[in-house]
Each structure stands twice: as C-alpha cells, then as structure tokens.
C-alpha cells in the first residue's frame, strides 16, 4: 500500500506558508539574512535563515519550534481538506531537543543563579526539559487529533525518519492517515552560541555564508522552520478525491558507526541508505531524475555525500541534477528532511528542480552536477538525503503522482 502526500504546510525563512517557500525556490532566491528577533550583535555569527513572523502568527508559547510546528500543521491539515474523518490520524514528528530559549532560562534563575522557582506558583510552567511534548500536544489540541504520537530526535535526519516511519505505518496498514514532518529552531542565543563554540557555522557571517558543494565553502548557516505533510494511502486519497502532490515510494536508513564528529568519508553508509530507499521503492538508479542533497556546506560533509552519490549512481552521477536548499533557507537541523521533501515536490507540481543558492564554483572534491540556479525539468523520481550528526543517515524516494 503506497503512501501519498495530500497536504503540505511550510514555515521557512521565506515566510509562513508553503506559497512563499515555493515562490522563493522557483525564483532561486535566498532568505538568509541578519537576525532580527533578538539582539545578536554580540554573537560571532549574526545571520540565519530566520522566519519572519508577523504578530498574527505568534502563539502563546514563545518557543519558536512549537509555533512553527503548529502553523505548518494547520496549513497541511487544511491543504489536504482534512476534517472529522481524519481525526484519528497519528502524528510523527522530527524535532530538535535543544534546551529552552535563553529568555526562558533567565526567567527561571534568581539573582544568586540558583534554581529556586515555581515552588510557590499555582501552576508550574516549566519548559526546560524539552518542548517535545509541547509541539505534539499543541498540534493535537488544535486539530483534535486522537491518534498516537511518535517523536523522532535523530538529529538532522529526524524529520526524514519520522516521515519514513509514517509512510511505513501506512504501508503496513497500521494507519490510514498520518500527519508527519519536522520543526526546529536554534536561532536563539543559546543555540547559536553553542553551535558557534562547536565551530559549525560559517565564520564569515554573511548572507551568502552557506555555499554547498562550492570550492570556498566553510560551514553552515543556521535556519529554522517547519514542514508538515498529510500522508495517506493512495486508495484513500483517490477515494476522497484529494489532490496528490507526490508519492512516498521508499525510504532507507543506515548508520555510519564511524565517528561522532565526522561523517564516514567514503560515503559507504550513506550510500546504503540511498540504495535501501531505491530498493524499497522498486526503482532503478537510472530512474532517478534529481537528488535533493543534505548539502550543509561544511568542509567534511559535502565531499562525503558526493562520494555516497557516486557510489550509488557511478558515472551517471555526472549528469544527475543535485542541489541543496540550505544556502537559501539555512540548515533547519531536525526539520531539514521535512522542508527538503517539500522542496522536492516542486519537481512534480511545477516541473522545477530547486537550485543551490550561493553555489558558484564546484569543488572538484564534490564531483556532482550541482544546480546553481533552478532548472526546468520533468522527472518522475527524486531522492532526498538527510545525514545527521553522529552518522544517522536517511533517504526518502519520492515519485510523481500516478
């Protein structure tokens, strides 16, 4: 039983909604820019793929991840035309688990820097443990969902794996409808400060700082946002006359089992995830018309991914279009696999392959056909790669609606 996508919701640096996201990708634009929602002037890195929220978008929860998840869920649900008949839907989310926002922390610390709060409060409001439950609870409350919840926190592959499990549950017949995707934000002082101390972001601090597969790449740009999808069986979608964006044909996952801080350089483990996705999809490598790469713009990550792609596609990789949207919206971390799946849908809805913002000169160490600008093409199968910290790899195979 194949799973099809019948609803899409996106929150990105291009704005709230799928429409501005798709418009930005169509235009080959970049939405990375100076951080505006807090004073980042003292941080070494002051640019990000920051979501431009309007007052109307604001949610009582100040946690941006929760806001993004809720907004994207509402859009996907409405887009799919879901109603009472779908309220038994399960929820599969890929989320980041960083600590609460810095302003929450300051609120909870007294002058002596001691944890000494809440004892006298009537209703404890402690949000330090993790917002995992907050996002899921909020979505379920807003949409009246009654199904189970699974929260995947497999770092940068979390959303892709959440979507894969959602598709698997439909294929197994365990679920009829699943709302799935991911949300994340590290665009806050603690998130950016922690990443900066780790040395992950590009040190240049410019809007074009993230340059995937480029000879001059020197690190990632942090992004934030969410993408959620309504998945249902093809039969069910057909039966209710739903619009189908694309099919989840297959998925694969693997682990590097190599080093915590670096990807396996030969790409062999990542290649296994891609092959597994193709196998599950019943699709030969030659049928793939586009790869949306993980493409973080880091010195080590991009060549390892290029090696993985070449292991799977051999010399055919010379002609296979590959791009990364991280130059345009930043690295959405746990939500990356979700927003990149949304980007792949453009290939089926508009016959447009997204480009790689800020990519100018191909690194010979990444021998791929990297699309700088968006390209018109009609393809039937796309792959979306998500390769997470510590070597958790995921790949989704997506097909044109039949």
């Amino acid at each position, binding site marked *: 039983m194949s799973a099809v996508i019948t609803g899409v919701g996106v929150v990105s640096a291009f704005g709230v909604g799928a429409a501005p996201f798709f418009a930005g990708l169509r235009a080959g634009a970049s939405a990375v820019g100076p951080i505006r929602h807090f004073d980042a002037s003292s941080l070494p890195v002051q640019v990000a793929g920051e979501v431009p929220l309007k007052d109307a978008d604001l949610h009582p929860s100040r946690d941006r991840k929760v806001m993004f998840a809720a907004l994207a869920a509402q859009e996907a649900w409405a887009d799919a035309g879901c109603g009472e008949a779908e309220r038994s839907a399960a929820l599969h989310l890929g989320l980041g688990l960083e600590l609460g926002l810095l302003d929450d922390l300051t609120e909870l610390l007294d002058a002596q820097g001691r944890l000494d709060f809440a004892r006298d409060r009537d209703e404890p409001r402690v949000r330090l443990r993790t917002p995992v439950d907050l996002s899921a609870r909020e979505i379920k409350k807003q949409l009246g969902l009654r199904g189970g919840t699974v929260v995947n926190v497999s770092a940068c592959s979390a959303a892709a794996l959440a979507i894969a499990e959602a598709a698997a549950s439909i294929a*197994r017949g365990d679920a009829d409808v699943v709302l799935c995707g991911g949300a994340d934000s590290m665009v806050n002082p603690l998130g950016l400060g922690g990443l900066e101390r780790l040395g992950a972001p590009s040190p240049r601090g410019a809007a074009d700082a993230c340059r995937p597969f480029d000879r001059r790449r020197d690190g990632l740009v942090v992004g934030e946002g969410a993408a959620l999808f309504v998945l249902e069986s093809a039969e069910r979608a057909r039966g209710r006359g739903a619009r189908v964006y694309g099919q989840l044909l297959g998925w694969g996952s693997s682990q590097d089992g190599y080093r915590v801080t670096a990807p396996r350089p030969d790409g062999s483990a990542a290649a296994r995830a891609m092959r597994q996705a193709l196998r599950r999809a019943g699709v030969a490598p030659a049928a793939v018309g586009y790869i949306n790469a993980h493409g973080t713009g880091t010195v080590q990550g991009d060549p390892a991914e290029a090696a993985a792609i070449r292991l799977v596609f051999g010399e055919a990789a010379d002609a296979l279009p590959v791009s990364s949207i991280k130059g345009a919206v930043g690295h959405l971390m746990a939500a990356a696999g979700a927003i990149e799946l949304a980007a792949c849908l453009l290939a089926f809805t508009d016959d447009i392959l997204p480009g790689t913002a800020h990519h100018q000169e191909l690194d010979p160490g990444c021998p791929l056909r990297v699309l700088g600008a968006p390209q018109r093409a009609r393809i039937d199968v796309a792959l979306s790669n998500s390769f997470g910290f510590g070597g958790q790899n995921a790949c989704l195979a997506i097909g044109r609606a039949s």
Partner: protein
Amino acid sequence: MSMKLPCVAVHGWAFHTPLGSDPERVLGRLLAGERAAASCPLFDAQSHPCVLAAAIPQPPQPSRRRKFLGRMGLYAVEVGIAALEHARQRVPQLAMLPSVRLGLFFGYGGLRAPWDELMLAMAEQAADLSLSWERGLRQLHPFFMLQQLSNNAHALCAEEVRAQGEGVTLAGPSAGAQALASASAALAAGAVDAALCVAYDSLIAPEVLIEQGLRGSLTRARTAAELRAPYDREAAGAVPGEAAAALLLMSDAAAEPLAWLQAADGAQAMRQVRSAAQVIDGAAQAVVAADREELQALGAGTRLTATLGSFGQVGAAAPLVQTIAVATALRRGELPPIAGLAADRAVCEAAVTAATRTSARAALCLSVGGAVAVEIGGASHV
C-alpha cells in the same frame, strides 16, 4: 501473544537500575521487597515538593566518552555495549554478523538542563539578552552543544558497537516502548538481522521534582519509611527514579532466547499486546485513580506485581527494565512482591505482597509509556 504485532527473541540484556546492575542480584533485592527510594543523592532537593529519589548508585565508568555525554548518556552506552556482549556469549553466530545488519534503536525521555554549566553562562546575562556572548555564552564548553545533542548517546553507541544498519532515536515518555516496537518492525521486515535497543531516562532533576511534585504524581513523603506503595488504597505518588537498559533482539531463536517479547506504545498498547499473561507488572503510578483504572487489565488468575514500585519511576526506560526484571523472575520461578504493600491495604486481591513461587511463563509489563508482553520458554506465538 498478539497475532498482529511482531514477536522477537531477546538474546542479550543489560541494565543499570537504582537496585543494581546484575539481573539476578537485582531480582534478589526485588524478592526481598526492597525499595530504592532515599533522600535525593544527586542534589539538595529539600526545598522541592518531592525530596525522595531512586538513583543509580554507582557513577558511570571512566570513559573518553565523558566529554560528549552526560551521566545518563554514559550509562546508556555502557548497557548497549554490555547487552551486545551478553548476546554474543550466548549466540555465537552474532560474532559473524555484518555490521550493516545490526540496527540500533534508542529511546529516552528528554533532555534535562545541565545546570552546573548553564549557571556559568547565565549568571551575568542581562534581562534584554544584550551582549549575551560577552556576558557568558563564550564560556560554554566547546562540546556543550554536542553534550546537549538529541542523539549523542546513540551516535557514541553506534561507534562503539559498529552498528551500521537501520537506526532511530526517539524521545518522550513512550520512547522506550516505541524503540522496542520500531526494532521489532525492522526485524520483522528483514531490514536488520539483530537490533540493539537501548532506553534511558532520569526523572531525578530539579525541574521534574518541582513540576511533577506540584502536580501530585510524585510522592511528598519526607522519608522512605513514610512512603505508600503503589496499589495501596491511599497511594500518594511515585518515587522519581532513573535507569538505562538495553536488549539485543533477533527475529528468531538462533539460540535459546532469554525471553520473547512484543511491544506497543500509547493508549492502545495494553489491548494490543494483551494475551494470556499470568502476571502483570503494573505501571505503579501510585495514584489511586490511575492504579485502579489499570487493574481493569487483570484477568482471572492474573497476579499483580510492581517492580517499578521498587525501582522508582524510570520514565522511558521502564519497558526495558521491566522486561529484564520480569523475565529473570519468570525464569527463576519466583514473583517479587509489591514492595511495602500490606495485603490488607491493597486495592485488589491479586496483588502479590510477599515473594511467591510461580509457574507462570507469560507476563504483561505496563508502564506510563507502553506495554510489553514477555514470555519465556517455548513461546506460544510460534
């Protein structure tokens, strides 16, 4: 066992619990009716609503992993390695298993704030967050973000055991049961030949003691002697605990398995895995309404025990901890009592209040996050 859920064989296990790390010795303490609850040993909790806790007594082993992982993550990697080694001793074929056929499935409750380090970065912050870098964030350890990363224990464990097959990291109170279910599904689909499933969680954190203490789900007893047991007519909250546990699962009996299991999470879990269980290891929430509601799962002749009453509430780790404890008890033919529960105070007659000989071979382990059906010997699923 249920026909729909995959049934998998347990070939290796390991855990760190508040009652120890050796399953046989832990069972001995359970049979003796011991409870791990004591005045919180990890920090001063005397001003918090809940002051008791059941902590893992020994520190993690010295390790190079310490720079990447917090205390619970270190325990998780230790039990993952130990469970795989345990299985390799019992199933020689595992030594030949290609690393690409070994999957790794992690579940944990969620992050806890690393207060000691955060204090250094936060103490001088301004209310408007201006100059946050100079005011403290630059003091964060370079590995701070790695230490907080959601899958760091998974990544370290994968590196140590060279697991290259499928893998996920799940979070939330049901994550342990979900990791078991995910591993079982991967085995059933033939995606991996062996699945190492690891779950860890600690409820012993200041914010948890405050939040759940105020909600009434944790005990307000000031000493262990004042504690009411779960399934007591006047049960008044659980003891926060912590644990890490790992199971090595395979889809078939390559050797005689330690046990068979089926796992499910969520509200439907009990119904999904409900079977001819002769024993129920209850969720032991020690909240009268919740305890009574749960007892509806009891069938005629089913005995009720509550290992979590002795371990404390161990969050997402519960399904794996219970599997090891209960399977060990069934294999030995002895049921542990609900520690501290007097027969005349129990909410049901089925409650085990003293160590009891048993010929039971199947049990149902319930926890806040899910349910696991455990069976020893020739499983009825085949």
